[in-house]
């Protein structure tokens, strides 16, 4: 069978599976819709969290980024896994003990203030919408390359599937679909990695393979460093970013991960506090399988790619090259008219431009793996994008129907009314997300970094102080969140969008890029919160008692109704 038939078969089977699960586990109460009735097993929750977390960016883009950036790519590897240590130790168990349904619920109750609640809702909405737009683009990319449909048709098919199971199943449906999606995506990621590792190094474990010798007896990483030097790129195993910037970007990604509402809310779905800890452990284990394989894929793909195309005659290039050329994601411009590909660091001599996003998708073709493996990667990419999109849509719909409508606009709404509102907001959210997928704003890439910075600068200090510092009051927390966010927004707009006079790399404060600035804004938030709270009245007795209660893991309510 050819690649396209295989892809239709595998995508068809997996999509049927997702829809089947959604019908079997549809939600019938708000508790089931928002937090799956708080009865999810910790391992199932770990699997679902892993699928929720690993998006099109982790599956499709990350290995490609590392493959071009080498050591500098470590910021994603450490940043997007180290955040789970913070989640498990500082947030998940206490938020589960607190109960309730959403992150703004915690902020609003702990800081006894609807202003705090609204600030939290705004942050949750901005973070989730910027994220979901990227997922829809991922879906469109996979459809257009492998199924040869128009990108827009691909986005609409994806929207329809997500709409079906997110609206019908709520958190309950999403959780069990995500368990299936994790299995699909990890299988799809590992099979080609293992194949290629055996092919290139004889070692079936990719994590060890990329530290082994190739068929010519030279260590793979040494060979790649040599190739990089020859072509004028910086050495693969040492970076080009400054140390302080690597440090701050890693910290911003870690703290941002721990502050993302769609990740935090997953820990509300288990039965007890000890289950919340356990599911964080399982989640990171399942995530680590992909995250330790990605740098291996990056090395294999980079070496293979350079060896295949560098100084090769254009007409001798393999089929995958022209397949990707038609999508416009690889371009060859024969500047010196010698009919041979020159791929070098020097921009005036370089003739080849490769979109980083295609490395994972093209890797099996570059390594000449069987057609079914190539099709499997397409199905895996779709699973990764759809599972994250669904989780984000749920946060958006819960923010609107629960945090805004139920808690602020109309507290007397019936359970049924709230459920209808939740489903309607999910529909609207899918349509907006789809619109972003079809008309991707060119600032998507920039705003994804903004999402992490925002989460780091706003939620993380407010939640951590709310648990670990009993004296923290609403004045401190609100001031901290607002100043943290505004500072982050100012810095991003100044250096990403050239507002407020703009600026270049030389003007960065302390040499820290906008991607790493979330860390600075987070520290500012902490300091502002603590100073302001020490000058303002301490929180009421009953709030201090809430803090005492969440620190103790026993007597957890089954499913808090309000």
């Amino acid at each position, binding site marked *: 069978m050819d690649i396209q038939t295989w892809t239709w078969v595998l995508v068809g089977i997996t999509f049927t599976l997702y829809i089947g699960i959604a019908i079997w586990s549809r939600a019938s109460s708000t508790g089931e819709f928002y937090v799956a009735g708080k009865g999810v097993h910790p391992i199932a929750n770990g699997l679902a969290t892993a699928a929720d977390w690993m998006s099109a960016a982790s599956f499709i883009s990350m290995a490609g980024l*590392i493959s071009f950036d080498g*050591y500098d*790519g*470590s910021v994603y*590897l*450490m940043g997007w*896994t*180290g955040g*789970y*240590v913070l989640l*498990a*130790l*500082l947030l998940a*168990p206490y938020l589960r003990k607190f109960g309730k349904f959403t992150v703004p619920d915690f902020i609003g109750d702990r800081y006894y203030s609807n202003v705090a609640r609204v600030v939290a809702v705004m942050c949750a909405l901005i973070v989730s919408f910027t994220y979901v737009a990227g997922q829809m683009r991922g879906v469109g990319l996979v459809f257009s390359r492998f199924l040869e449909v128009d990108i827009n048709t691909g986005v609409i098919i994806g929207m329809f599937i997500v709409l079906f199971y997110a609206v019908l199943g709520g958190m309950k449906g999403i959780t069990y679909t995500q368990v299936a999606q994790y299995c699909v995506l990890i299988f799809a990621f590992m099979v080609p990695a293992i194949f290629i590792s055996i092919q290139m190094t004889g070692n079936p474990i990719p*994590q060890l393979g*990329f*530290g*082994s*010798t190739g068929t010519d007896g030279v*260590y*793979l*990483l*040494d060979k790649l460093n040599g190739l990089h030097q020859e072509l004028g790129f910086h050495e693969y*195993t*040492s970076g080009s970013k400054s*140390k302080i910037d*690597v*440090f701050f970007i*890693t*910290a911003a990604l870690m703290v941002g991960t721990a502050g993302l509402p769609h990740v935090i809310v997953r820990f509300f779905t288990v039965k007890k506090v*000890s289950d919340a*800890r*356990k599911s*964080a*452990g399982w989640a*990171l*284990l399942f995530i*680590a399988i992909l*995250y*330790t394989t990605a*740098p291996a894929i990056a090395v294999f793909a980079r070496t293979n790619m350079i060896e295949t195309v560098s100084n090769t005659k254009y007409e001798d290039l393999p089929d995958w090259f022209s397949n990707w050329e038609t999508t416009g994601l690889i371009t060859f411009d024969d500047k010196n008219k010698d009919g041979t590909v020159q791929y070098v660091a020097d921009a005036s001599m370089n003739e080849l431009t490769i979109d980083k996003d295609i490395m994972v998708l093209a890797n099996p073709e570059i390594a000449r793996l069987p057609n079914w493996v190539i099709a499997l990667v397409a199905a895996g990419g779709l699973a990764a994008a759809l599972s994250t999109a669904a989780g984000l849509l749920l946060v958006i719909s819960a923010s609107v129907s629960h945090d805004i409508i139920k808690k602020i606009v109309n507290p007397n709404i019936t359970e049924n009314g709230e459920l209808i509102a939740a489903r309607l907001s999910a529909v609207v959210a899918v349509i907006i997300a789809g619109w972003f997928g079809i008309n991707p704003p060119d600032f998507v890439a920039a705003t994804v970094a903004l999402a992490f910075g925002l989460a780091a600068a706003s939620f993380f200090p407010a939640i951590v102080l709310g648990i670990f510092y009993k004296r923290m009051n609403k004045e401190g927390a609100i001031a901290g969140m607002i100043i943290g966010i505004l500072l982050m927004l100012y810095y991003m707009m100044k250096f990403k969008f050239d507002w407020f006079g703009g600026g270049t790399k030389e003007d960065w404060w302390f040499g820290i890029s906008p991607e790493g600035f979330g860390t600075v804004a987070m520290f500012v938030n902490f300091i502002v919160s603590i100073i302001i709270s020490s000058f303002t009245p301490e929180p009421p007795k009953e709030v201090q008692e809430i803090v*005492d209660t969440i*620190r*103790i*893991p*026993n*007597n957890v309510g089954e499913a808090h109704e309000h």
Partner: protein
Amino acid sequence: MDKTKQQKYWNENLKYLAILLSIWFLVSYVFGILLVEQLNTIKIGGFELGFWFAQQGAIYVFVILIFVYIRLMNQLDKKYNLDN
């Protein structure tokens, strides 16, 4: 549960957090970033050690840290009869 017992439980919890988070900081920020050049002079197989910590080792340690935390806390909950 009385206040002093509760405070004792909390202090033990904070002690675990301090130890585990120090290791978390050490393997990622110190080994993977601050001392990466120095560690890169040591080679294990094809890996330079600093590069290995940044792209592999730190992640393995993170997973282990969470499972150690789960174990420690389960024992602590048992000790204070909070494991219901």
